[in-house]
């Protein structure tokens, strides 16, 4: 039996709801997560069901939220810490990268926390409510970084993140919150961390993407198919650890690689994937590795500026056609 038409946002709420129902060690803390139910209502109804001790409205103190979550995890709890917008994760960068990420390596203390929140642009949020900060953290050994693109994955990966023994950053794409929905299984399921998914099979080139840009990439692939170019589209789902096998298998099959991400260009995951592919599948490549990304600027506010900033299907199609010529 399937539950019809669950949004990406509702899938995240369900994951927290079910995990808190399953395990009293799971608690949620963040700004306005309780009585208000979160700025996007992702935690609506959780306080009512689980009470004040398990759903904790905190002061506006991102450093304290993460620090306290780590401290709680040392006593065996599994805290979920919400960033109201993921941009604010910059405020607790030190707690995440120096405290939580190094805890197990340095002194053998696992810190099973989940830091989750809305990331991404396309909703005219401006420079401080649109960020894709994943690569700051992909560069930090000790963390796991998840960027789900579908409602199914958002639920299954968040459950895996809560059960994981490491600090996991879970970047929800706010553009997808209410725009995508799908039938979810009624029963229990999880999605493994660190496994990419092939969303569309194709033999002519590989497009690797994640989060909201997966949908844009699939739109571009449909357009390319009209010209007889069959793109294989891979959804990374997890950025750290990266699923090298799925990436390399696809490149070995298509010999051409285009990487699409909404994150800015310099230092984005495309660079890392390009290095991986040239190191491990150089002989298989029939053309340059291309990338379609956002511009190397802050995320601008005004719609024409943000549209210029973001990748779109037309930009992906143009790059794919160029690559297909090789």
């Amino acid at each position, binding site marked *: 039996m399937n539950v019809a038409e669950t949004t990406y946002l509702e899938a995240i709420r369900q994951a927290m709801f079910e995990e808190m129902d399953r395990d009293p060690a799971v608690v949620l803390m963040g700004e306005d997560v309780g009585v208000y139910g979160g700025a996007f209502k992702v935690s609506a109804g959780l306080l009512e069901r689980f009470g004040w001790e398990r759903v904790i409205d905190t002061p506006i103190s991102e450093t*304290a939220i993460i620090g306290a979550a780590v401290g709680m995890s040392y006593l065996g709890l599994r805290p979920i810490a919400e960033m109201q917008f993921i941009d604010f994760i910059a405020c607790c960068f030190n707690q995440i990268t120096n405290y939580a990420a190094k805890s*197990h390596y340095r002194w053998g203390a696992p810190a099973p926390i989940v830091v989750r929140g809305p990331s991404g642009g396309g909703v005219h949020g401006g420079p401080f409510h649109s960020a894709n900060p994943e690569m700051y953290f992909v560069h930090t050994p000790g963390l796991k970084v998840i960027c789900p693109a579908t409602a199914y994955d958002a639920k299954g990966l968040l459950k895996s993140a809560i059960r994981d023994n490491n600090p996991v950053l879970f970047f929800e794409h706010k553009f997808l919150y209410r725009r995508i929905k799908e039938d979810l299984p009624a029963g229990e399921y999880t999605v493994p961390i660190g496994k990419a998914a092939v969303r569309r099979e194709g033999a002519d080139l590989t497009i690797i993407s994640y989060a909201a840009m997966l949908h844009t990439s699939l739109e571009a692939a449909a357009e390319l198919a009209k010209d007889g170019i069959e793109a294989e589209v891979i959804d990374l789902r997890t950025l750290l650890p990266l699923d090298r096998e799925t990436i390399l298998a696809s490149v070995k099959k298509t010999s051409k690689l285009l990487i699409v991400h909404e994150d800015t260009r310099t230092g984005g995951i495309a660079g890392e994937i390009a290095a991986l592919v040239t190191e491990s599948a150089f002989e298989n490549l029939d053309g340059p590795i291309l990338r379609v990304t956002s511009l190397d600027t802050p995320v601008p506010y005004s719609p024409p500026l943000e549209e210029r900033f973001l990748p779109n299907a037309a930009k992906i199609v143009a790059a794919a056609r160029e690559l297909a010529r090789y």
Partner: protein
Amino acid sequence: MASTLTREQHLELYYWMQLNRQLEEQMVKLFRQNKVVGGLYTSLGQEATSVGTAYALGPGDWIAPMIRNIGSLLVRGFKPRDILTQYMARYTSPTLGKDGTSHFGDLKEKHTVSPISMLGDLIPVMTGVAMAGRYLGQKIVAMTWIGDGGSSTGAFHEGLNLAAVQKAPFVLVVENNQWAYSTPVARQVPLRDLADRARAYGIASYIVDGNDVTAVVETSRQAVERARGGDGPVLIEAKTMRMQGHAQHDAAEYVPKEMFEYWKARDPLVLYEKSLNERKLWTAAQKKEIDARVAREIAAELAIAESGPFPPPELAEQGVYCDGCHTISADWKRPKEELMPPRASVNPNWTVGDFGALENGAKSAARAVANVSSREQSGNGDRPAPAAKSAAKPKAAKKSARAKAGR
């Protein structure tokens, strides 16, 4: 009030302080022999604060020491070899050579959380420990330390504020050793007493002579039990002095000579020996016996530490992630059902008692003053037990006067 310490405990305190000091003297020798891999950070002059604060805790309580809290680690049950091997970067050290100094801990037995170099971060972390302990029904207290310099960080504010609004069973020891590396306390904080900061968080505070170990123990015991009682966090300012540079490489020429002389006359070990003599709590033979025990133990621990190998290079690649190596479970001391629906379920609305109105200015000012004094009765700037002779000034009266004058 008479001291709550037994004769045996008095001698134990001397043992810990002497072990702390002699261990560090040994570490200085190792540093000069180039056997310490990185820098060496000592706590000369601060032993009474380290030992006395940790001594006030029960076995189930949690600590997160700072780099100079060697004494706290020893009291908590770590061995000198743990500290020696950390500094010498050996495979036999608690972190297997992955980190140095007092950057280690033990979640299972000694309930000790590792510090990191970024100051202030332990305050929110230990607030979380305190909150989790309460959540699990464990009745524990979490304690950490911060220096005068570290009290300037944002993490200090965020952590202590969260602890205060959560009424977390948390004790923060502000170890005012007068110097943050080369910067005097006056350049860190424009306050004579760092304990005054507690007032801004609406929490209780004490000031204690950090070089008087019995005063530190008595004050800390009161603070710990107060925090355990559920009244929220407590701040203790221990006034002491860092008698060496920031680390061994630092000759501390920026410290006025007279300042060192002032504090040298207040050396915590000398003071305590004198006090034990005056109160006839030991004999010369007992002192000799403890000193000999300390020397013997350090020699034995040093031999064990020096025989430890360096880690195998491939260890560098291991342990970044916890994938199946630890089983994570909580020690529940209350029925889990209390935290599960339907028992946990609530009416999700705020109860707002005070609308924050200002329409009656005079009344509201009077209320604010009244609140200040009632808070002081409940803790701010309280004087600890008279037995702690050098502890706490009577700050409450002064503060009320200041609050009134300001309105």
